[in-house]
């Protein structure tokens, strides 16, 4: 690891993270760090355990062993809602929105999570949700960041795939997280949409600690400050992109095929 990252306090870290399903270790002794202002990309072939890793970090799955720390707290075994409350936001590979709500309602509800009153508090039964100004402002910001202003009234399930991916991000951003776990945000996007998403991610970098799981190698090398390669649940390389790229083992296991596919790749 480079010296710079060692000195900076990581906002989120995992140590020795393992997840077994029966006899199979989907994630095996994985450690990583996320720093403010950095994008840490995680790549690897299908089945490498990347999504499982994301699920472990977000609390969707409990680890078999290992620890996870978020902003100084040991969050191992915490529920997803508790982790979200500590400013972690995550987007999903398989679009996970409220299909029958409008785009606006999706984002508004996400923003509402930050000030949700206790459900047993009667005051929360009489207020008008639509008139919660701070919530509306937060939602508006998120919609603008994701570029969905013109689609706010559309039913989420009726929008295009690319718009749904944007909505996926908007909802995550509406919770104003500090740490972002993004699972294949570019999946299935056309060229133009992918480029604006990459631009968005670069804008977000400054104020967030980001983990990015992706397959799009070009985007990875544009975005990543740090790169971890996973194969069969284990980390086979973790360093700055230039170093990882040159690693023979990585090339053999994964990058080899990828670099042959891309034409006119940048350096």
């Amino acid at each position, binding site marked *: 690891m480079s010296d710079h990252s060692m000195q900076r306090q990581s906002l989120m870290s995992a140590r020795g993270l393992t997840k077994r399903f029966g006899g199979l270790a989907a994630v095996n002794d994985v450690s990583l760090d996320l720093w403010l202002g950095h994008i840490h990309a995680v790549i690897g072939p299908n089945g490498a355990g990347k999504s499982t890793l994301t699920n472990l970090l977000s609390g969707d799955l409990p680890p078999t062993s290992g620890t996870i720390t978020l902003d100084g707290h040991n969050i191992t075994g915490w529920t997803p809602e508790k982790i979200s409350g500590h400013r972690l936001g995550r987007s999903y590979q398989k679009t996970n929105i409220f299909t029958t709500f409008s785009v606006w309602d999706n984002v508004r*509800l996400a923003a509402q999570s930050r000030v949700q009153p206790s459900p047993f508090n009667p005051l929360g039964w*009489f207020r008008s949700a639509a008139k919660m100004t701070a919530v509306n402002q937060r939602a508006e910001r998120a919609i603008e960041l994701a570029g969905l202003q013109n689609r706010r009234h559309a039913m989420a399930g009726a929008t295009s795939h690319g718009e749904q991916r944007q909505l996926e991000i908007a909802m995550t951003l509406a919770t104003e997280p500090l740490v972002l776990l993004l699972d294949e945000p570019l999946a299935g996007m056309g060229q133009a949409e992918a480029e604006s998403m990459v631009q968005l991610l670069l804008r977000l970098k400054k104020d967030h600690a980001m983990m990015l799981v992706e397959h799009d190698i070009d985007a990875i090398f544009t975005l990543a400050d740090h790169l971890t390669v996973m194969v069969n649940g284990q980390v086979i390389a973790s360093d700055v992109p230039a170093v990882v790229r040159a690693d023979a083992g990585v090339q053999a296991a994964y990058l080899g095929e990828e670099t042959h596919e891309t034409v006119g790749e940048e350096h």
Partner: protein
Amino acid sequence: MSTPQIHLETLPRSIQLVMTLGFLALAAFPFVGSDFYSAMVVRMMILAIFAMSLDLLQGVTGLVSLGHAAYFGLAGYVLAFITPQNEAISLYTSLPLAVGGAALAALVIGFLVVRTHGIYFIMVTMAFAQMVFFIFFDNKALGGSDGLFLNFRPDAGVIDLENKQVFYYFTLGCLLAVYGFLRRLLWSPFGRALSGIRVNEHRMRALGFNTFSHKLAAFTLAGALAGLAGYLWAAQSGFVNPELMGFHMSAHAIMMVILGGMGNFAGAIVGALSFEYLLHIFKDLPDVGEFKTGKHWQMWMGLFIVALIIFAPKGILGVISRTFGGSAERKESGHE
């Protein structure tokens, strides 16, 4: 629930008109209807409150409870127990006690069942409700299978509930209050969260919502409102028995909500009124020769339910909405 449905949360104009006319008709009814039919309408209104309470759970939050009648019956039993033999009990003490009792039961049972999902939830709600049923059915001290009688309606001071018309308007008042409350709740942050849980609970958790406590609160509140209906039922009929808490009662409630259309409370009212009226029609069917058609009302009811599920799963309001237009899709949120 496996398939997310677009619910008519924002009532289209056609439905709003129907509801307004309906409430006016209810208000005018005692002046035109006989005592017999007025009493029937009171029962319908009480069942409408019961149905709305279930709609909160089922239509809004997506929790299908096959045991909701437990809270309806419990509140009725509380009133039956605390009403003395020789005089009336005050409304102002008995109502909070009954509703509170139902709410407490819902809180306890809810704590156990709300952690289950899908088909488990359906089964455990049914199981716990049957447990409550058997507690009362098997215990002579609690009235047993014969049930309990109430000799007096609650004493509300200036409001004389023993007077049929007064009781009618008291019930109508409760109906309107509950409807107004629930419509308000639907658009509150709590209501929005419940809708979100119905559509995608997993994402709600990921967004930071404590879905367990939200579902529990909905379960408890629904139980409390069912308790209000049960209290009124006991007060009106003067009699409670374990059937009020039974599986059939719970299933009737589900039917009413489905028949009217789920998720907006208006449907629950329409469904309750229609269902009761339908039941009345089936039971009163004229004999065809030797065949006692009315006696076999359960058959017609059963076939009707089967036909409803096959052909009109969105219920009456769905049909009205489709026929008379008025957008079923949600445009601007937060406006009725």
